[in-house]
C-alpha cells in the first residue's frame, strides 16, 4: 500500500534538471531511504513533496489525495512533516516552546478562546503541552525541555527537530540527513528511534549518507543520481546493484576506507 506516490515528477532550476521523470512510491508504515551523491536532487524531492518547490511537471499523491503544487502549510496539515538539512530551530525559544509551535494545527481553539481563556482553551493547551513532552520523551530529550534550543549540542538539536516534526502528528515524516554531524553513539540511538517512529505506525522517509544506518534500518532504498532514479529495492538488492556501486556506493566505500 503506497502512501506517497510521484508520477513523472519534473523539477528544473533554470537549465538544471534537478528531478526528471521520477516515478516512485513509498509504502505505508515503511522506512524508505533516499540515497545518492551530493546534488542528486534528494532535498529537491523533499521540497517538492512538501510544497516548498513547485514541480514543473508530474504529480504527487498522498494516499489518494493529489497534493501537487499545494502550498506547504496545507501539505503539512494533510499529514506530511519534515525536518531540514540545516537545522532550523527557533532561537530565543526553549525546546518546549519550539515543539509547541508545531502543535499549532492540533490546537483547536479560536481567537476569542484566547482572549477569554475559557476551559476549552486550557484543556487544549494542557493536552498539547503533555503531547509535546511525550514526543520529547520519545526522542529521549525531555530533560532539555527548558533549555534554549539553539544553545544545545548539535546532536540534540537534530533530535529536537525530529520531535518537532513528530508533534505535528503526521502520517509521513521526512527526515533530511538526520544523522549528519552525529557521533557514532548518537547515530546508533537515532537508528533505534527511527525504528520506533515506524513502529508507532508512521511512514518514515529519510535522506542519508550514512550507509550503515541506511542498510540496517531501511525497508526500501531508492537511489537518485542527477535527478533520475537509478535503482530501488531492499537494502540487500541495492548493496549488490552494479550501477549503484559504480555511481555511488563505490565512492562512499572509498571514503569510509
Amino acid at each position, binding site marked *: 500500500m503506497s502512501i506517497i506516490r510521484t508520477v513523472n515528477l519534473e523539477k528544473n532550476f533554470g537549465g538544471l534538471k534537478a528531478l526528471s521523470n521520477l516515478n516512485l512510491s513509498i509504502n505505508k508504515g515503511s522506512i524508505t531511504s533516499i540515497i545518492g551523491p551530493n546534488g542528486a536532487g534528494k532535498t529537491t524531492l523533499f*521540497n517538492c513533496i512538501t510544497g*516548498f518547490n*513547485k514541480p514543473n511537471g508530474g504529480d504527487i499523491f498522498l494516499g489518494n489525495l493529489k497534493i501537487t503544487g499545494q502550498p506547504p502549510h496545507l501539505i503539512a496539515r494533510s499529514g506530511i512533516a519534515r525536518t*531540514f538539512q540545516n537545522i532550523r530551530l527557533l532561537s530565543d525559544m526553549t525546546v518546549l516552546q519550539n515543539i509547541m509551535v508545531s502543535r499549532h494545527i492540533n490546537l483547536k481553539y479560536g481567537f476569542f478562546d484566547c482572549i477569554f481563556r475559557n476551559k476549552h482553551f486550557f484543556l487544549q493547551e494542557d493536552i498539547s503541552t503533555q503531547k509535546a513532552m511525550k514526543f520529547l520523551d520519545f526522542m529521549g530529550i525531555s530533560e532539555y525541555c527548558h533549555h534554549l534550543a539553539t544553545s544545545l549540542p548539535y546532536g540534540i538539536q537534530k533530535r529536537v527537530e525530529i520531535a518537532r516534526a513528530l508533534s505535528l502528528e503526521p502520517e509521513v515524516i521526512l527526515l533530511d540527513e538526520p544523522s549528519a554531524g552525529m557521533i557514532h553513539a548518537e547515530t546508533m540511538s537515532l537508528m533505534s528511534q527511527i525504528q520506533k517512529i515506524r513502529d508507532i505506525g508512521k511512514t518514515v522517509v529519510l535522506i542519508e549518507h550514512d550507509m550503515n544506518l541506511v542498510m540496517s534500518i531501511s525497508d526500501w532504498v531508492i537511489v537518485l543520481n542527477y535527478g533520475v532514479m537509478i535503482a530501488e529495492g531492499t537494502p540487500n538488492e541495492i548493496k549488490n546493484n552494479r550501477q549503484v556501486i559504480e555511481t555511488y556506493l563505490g565512492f562512499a566505500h572509498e571514503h569510509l576506507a
Partner: protein
Amino acid sequence: MFIQQIINGLTLGSVYSLIALGYTMVYGILEFINFAHGEIYMIGAYLGIIFLTFFTAVGLTTSNIYLSLFLTMILTIAFCCAYGYLIERVGYRPLRYAPRLSPLISAIGISIFLQNFVMFTQGATDKVIRVEALDGFVSVWGINLSYLQVAILTVSFVVMIGLNLFVNKTKIGTAMRATAQDKIMASLVGIDINMIISLVFVVGAGLASVAGVMVAGYYGLVNYHIGYIAGLKAFTAAVLGGIGSIQGAMIGGLILGIVETLGSAYVSSDYKDVYAFLILIVVLLIKPTGLLGQRIEDKI
C-alpha cells in the same frame, strides 16, 4: 502638447531611474530596502547648491561657468559616494547577520537623521538656486526642451549606458553579479564581498547624487524632505521594473515619470504623489516580480 508632456515625463522619469538603480542594486545583493537612499539624493541636491554658491562667491562662476558647474558636479558626486560608503559601513555592516528587521530600522534611523541634520544646518525653508546660463530652450518640431532637460536626458542616458557596460563587461561588474547570486559562493572564489557591497553603495549613491544635482538645477529649489518622496517613488520604479534588475529600474523609472506627468496634467495635480503608490499596489497585486524580474526559489 501631449508630446511635450511625454518629454517632461521622461525627464522626471530618468531622475527616478537614476535613484531606482541604487535601490535595485542594493536589493540585488543584500535583499534589503535601503531606506536612506533617497536622502543621498537630497544631500546631492543640497551639496550641488552649496558648492555652486561657494564657487560663485569666489568668483569662479563668473569667470568660467562651465568649469564651475563641472567642479560642482564632480565634488558632489565624490561627497555623495563617500556618504554612501559611510552609511553602509556605520549603519548596515554591523547588522549584516542580525535579524532581518534590524538593518531596515537602522536605515530608517539614518534617513531621519540625515533629513533632520540637513534641516538643522540648512534651515527648514526651501533653498533656491538659479543658474542663468542654463535658462534657455531649444525647440525641435515645436517641442520646447529646456537646456536642463536636455542635460538631464543626456547625462542619465550616458550614465546608464556606462553602468550597464560596467556591470556586464568589467571584471568588477562580474564580481558584483556573482555576489548578487550567491554571496558565499562568490567569497569562496576569492571575491571580497565587503568590498563589492561597499562598491554597490558607492555607485548607487553616485547615481543618486547625479540625479540630485540635476533636479536642484531643474526645479531651482530644494528642501530637506525631497529625498523621502523621491525615494518612495524610485523604489516603486525599481519594483515596477523588477527589483534586482538594473535594466528594470531604468525602464520602471521612465514609465513612472511618464505616468506621473500625464496624471498631473490630465487628471489632477493635487494627487500627483498618489499615482506612484497606486502603481506599486497594482504591480504587487498583478505581477510582483515586476516587468523584468524573475522569480527565484529559495534554497532550503
